[in-house]
């Protein structure tokens, strides 16, 4: 599940539909990305990052815990 994306969207006061409209995707697509059930293209990732004023790392990079 991509909590980073959901938190960034909520922090921006955007609904899934509003974010979807900003990036030219459907609400279902945003929902599936947040649930980790759809791998977006790099182009869509960049659009989402720009819409939320975040970097790709902030939204999509998963830290691996080696401990």
């Amino acid at each position, binding site marked *: 599940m991509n909590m980073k994306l959901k938190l960034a969207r909520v922090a921006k006061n955007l609904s899934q539909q509003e974010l*979807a409209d900003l990036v*030219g*995707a*459907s609400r*279902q*697509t945003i929902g*599936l990305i947040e649930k980790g059930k*759809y791998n*977006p*293209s790099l*182009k*869509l990732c960049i659009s989402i990052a720009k819409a939320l004023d975040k970097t790709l790392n902030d939204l999509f990079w998963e830290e691996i815990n080696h401990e």
Partner: protein
Amino acid sequence: MSKKPFLNMDERSKQIAGKVIAIMYFLTIIALQIDVIVRQFVFDQNIHDFEDLAIILTINSLFLITALLYFGAISIQKLKIKFVLIFYAWIVVLGTIFTYLKYNVFTDANLSFSQLMNKLVIIFTISGLIVLFWMLFSILGKRKIDKELD
């Protein structure tokens, strides 16, 4: 307020549509092939009764592979003569086996040696033309991608 298009296709829905269309296309082709086989061997229909279907299937397969080569789905880095000749030989062998089975096993035509030789000439020629056609389009496809990269 801006009007939203009725059919708002984003990258995910296009991807799903592409997959569904590909599966339905595959099933349609299989169904048509089964139809041709049933007409020929179950209903004993004359070949002229389903020749149109056979032509559609042949042209479809030919253009499917051509499109895959041209648009880079089948990516050939460098065309080697050895590879082309082996590929040509395979098509000829498969064509010969198919023709033999068609006339001497599945039907009672029992071709004579000279008739079989005549068929072989056609197989060699058509296979050669098909290989040349695919070679041409794989070269054109490669050029197209190289042009886009420049």
